[in-house]
């Protein structure tokens, strides 16, 4: 993996600012796609902006006819969510 500048965002605004200020940044959420791509040297960002501390973009809730799954919610959390499996039983089959 090529080296990069690691930065940790403290808020969404901070994440956007750090991303904008960097030469060629990528956001790091769970990293399950980004990290394998970096390991293969298929990408060479100048900066990684880690979103790990942005707890306000994690969570699952119902809003009328919709289920809202926020961007930093993990697959595991979605899969084990009672709300999701009650409303979308097919989700149970997609392990």
């Amino acid at each position, binding site marked *: 993996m090529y*080296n990069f500048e690691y930065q940790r965002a403290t808020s969404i605004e901070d994440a956007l600012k750090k991303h904008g200020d960097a030469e060629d940044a990528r956001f790091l959420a769970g*990293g399950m796609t980004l*990290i*394998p791509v970096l390991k293969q040297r298929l990408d060479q960002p100048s900066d990684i902006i880690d979103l790990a501390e942005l707890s306000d973009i994690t969570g699952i809730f119902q809003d009328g006819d919709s289920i809202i799954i926020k961007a930093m919610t993990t697959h595991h959390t979605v899969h084990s969510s009672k709300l999701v499996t009650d409303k979308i039983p097919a989700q149970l089959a997609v392990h």
Partner: protein
Amino acid sequence: MPTITMNVNNKQVSGDVEGRTLLVQFIRDNLGLTGTHVGCDTSQCGACTVHVNGRAVKSCSLLAVHVDGADVQTIEGLADGDTLHPMQEAFRQHHALQCGFCTPGMVMSAIGIINDNPDPSEREIREALEGNICRCTGYHNIVEAISAAAKEMR
């Protein structure tokens, strides 16, 4: 170079790492805990599985800085002195390994499976092992061992 601190197998550790240092590199190279294996370069094989804050994860797919401050458990942290963890004992009893290279990751994943689902069916165990590759056993005895350990651990 960032300094990170973690609790690894109930011991506070710290070290200086590059941004690109993977958790598995920190565990193996900085801490000398070489029970956590690297079996591929593509995040597929699961030999590097450890627990981070109680959840089984592939330590080759996490940056060490990303999990700064976390509680980490590796294969070395399972046994209590000479007494094996029930999952390790079940792997031994059921001969759930041949060459043993994938075994640390298998055991850590297996404990994660039981933590999520204390009474898994054979099919659920096989599905949950999707992220762990074993090239020797054909998985049969691994599944048997996990079923047996699940009973022990309930």
